């Protein structure tokens, strides 16, 4: 074929007739830079003025986020207990560091902050007294002003979640503020910089943190109708209303103990303990909200999470849970036990290892983090 088409003419001149003739227009530079990792782009801001404005363009930040959605450079971030620091690990290096303890990048602060949520490269932080919140993008060193939460000394934040609403192109934080008698649920919209009180949760989720996926925050809770059934409670950040998502249909939901939600590969996932088969099962909902899209992702044989507690109080077994944090393409999954230990399970060879993290005993919360150039107006 190519004999008569591509390779026929021999007219092509040899060598470069005009060595510097091809200058790439800005739209092509844009296309190339969309694929460059954030860390390099931050350095490239000083190439020239036009590159600086391109890389600082909010539309470029959005396009870049979309292009790098399946980011192989996923990180996990956590605040430390009793220590005003935030640490960050690359998932890749955690997996490679089975033989030597994993190293973290540290950010020190004069005040102590907790992480309320992580979305599109932004961390939503809350000071330890819960008086104020702020957004922080560590990759580009963007930080917002502090905004008051309205939390008083005798109240505290319980359920919360942070995410992006594409309808209004804004980041939102939901918090439930409670004291002994009262509960107020409200949403903060960054940019508008105002709180709006909303309806309280229709049920009581087991964990505080709602997981952000597909424009919604998600918690696992006992169904209002039956104490035996688990459901996923969601909050749509766009229309600010609650809804329910069904768990996998297969089998009897009663035999699943201690379900925990998270997001893997951009999809909602749930990890149960299947007491009948004595194993952990991770399911992935490939299409958000579609029950038949639940797919069994990984099964992990029962293992003893904390030998000491296991021996002393067999009763603790009922409280065991596993939270999936990250999964690689070749089936290596990172999970957190409820004793704040991190384990790595290789579903190919069935090996399970506890992760050693240098000098970090007090990981408070582990959030998935994706580097970005995003800095919302607020």
């Amino acid at each position, binding site marked *: *074929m*190519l*004999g*008569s*088409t*591509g*390779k*026929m*003419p021999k*007219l*092509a*001149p040899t060598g*470069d007739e005009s*060595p*510097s*003739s*091809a*200058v*790439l227009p800005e739209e*092509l*530079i844009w*296309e*190339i830079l*969309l*694929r*460059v*990792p*954030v*860390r*390099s782009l*931050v*350095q*490239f*801001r*000083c*190439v*020239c*003025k036009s*590159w*600086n404005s391109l890389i600082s363009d909010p539309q470029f930040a959005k396009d870049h986020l979309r292009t790098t959605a399946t980011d192989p450079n996923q990180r996990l971030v956590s605040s430390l207990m009793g220590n005003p620091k*935030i640490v*960050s690990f690359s998932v890749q290096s955690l997996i490679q560091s089975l033989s030597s303890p994993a190293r973290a*990048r540290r*950010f*020190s*602060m*004069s*005040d102590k*902050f907790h992480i309320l949520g992580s979305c599109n490269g932004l961390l939503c*932080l809350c000071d330890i007294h819960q008086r104020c919140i702020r957004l*922080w993008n*560590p*990759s*580009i*060193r963007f*930080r917002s002003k502090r905004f008051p939460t309205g939390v008083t000394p005798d109240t505290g934040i319980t359920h919360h979640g942070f995410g992006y609403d594409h309808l209004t192109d804004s980041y939102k934080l939901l918090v439930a503020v409670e004291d002994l008698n009262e509960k107020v649920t409200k949403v903060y919209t960054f940019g508008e910089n105002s709180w709006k009180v909303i309806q309280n949760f229709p049920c009581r989720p087991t964990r505080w943190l709602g997981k952000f996926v597909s424009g919604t925050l998600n918690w696992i809770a006992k169904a209002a109708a039956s104490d035996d059934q688990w459901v996923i409670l969601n909050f749509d950040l766009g229309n600010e209303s609650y809804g329910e998502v069904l768990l996998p249909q297969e089998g009897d939901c009663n035999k699943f103990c201690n379900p925990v939600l998270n997001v893997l590969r951009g999809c909602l996932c749930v990890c149960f303990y299947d007491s009948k088969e004595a194993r952990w099962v991770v399911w992935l909902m490939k299409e958000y909200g579609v029950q038949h899209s639940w797919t069994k992702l990984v099964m992990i044989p029962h293992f003893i999470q904390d030998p000491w507690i296991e021996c002393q109080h067999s009763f603790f077994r009922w409280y065991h849970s596993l939270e999936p944090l990250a999964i690689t393409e070749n089936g290596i999954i990172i999970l957190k036990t409820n004793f704040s230990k991190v384990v790595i399970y290789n579903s190919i060879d069935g090996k399970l290892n506890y992760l050693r993290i240098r000098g970090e005993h007090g990981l408070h919360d582990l959030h998935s983090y994706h*580097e970005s150039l995003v800095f919302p107006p607020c």
Partner: protein
Amino acid sequence: MVITAKGKEILEIAEEPEYVMLAKVEDLKMDMLRIVEEEEIKKIRLKTSDEATFEVEPSILKEMKRVQSLINTEAIDTSVAIPLPNITSRNLSRIIDFCWEHQYNTENLEEFKGRFLKSLNHQELKELLLAANYLNIKTLFDFLCNSFTDLIQNESPEFIRDFFNILNDTNSVKSMHAPAFQGSIDDD
């Protein structure tokens, strides 16, 4: 007519038992008959900036969205070659090679891509990106953009300026330079 790519295949199978070879040659004939039929109806000629004319088969042409839409919308007289004033014959030949391999080389595509990339210097890479953009060939365009990314992502700003022929018009380099993922989150 038209043998080169398939012709190579005939040479390669020549060492197989005769009956296998005959069967393959028979398949090949069928293939070629089919292709020849298609070509006679739809084959389009393209004329490059250096006045070379290429006959391009429909399956390759389909990749060139710009040419395809020209044909579809303007009812072009296909007896006359379509002029491509922005593309040299050397680049069009490379583009056709790439599109061909991308469609038919299912086994060693990555290997081909590696060789393809190695054969290009930076200048040629830029020219080809411009051409792929002009012809609107998504596969080649994405491949070249990713190749550029690999080339530049770990380089210094000085390298980038050289690479893209950019004049340094920044006088406050230091203030714009911020290492990622370090430092504190405290107020200034």
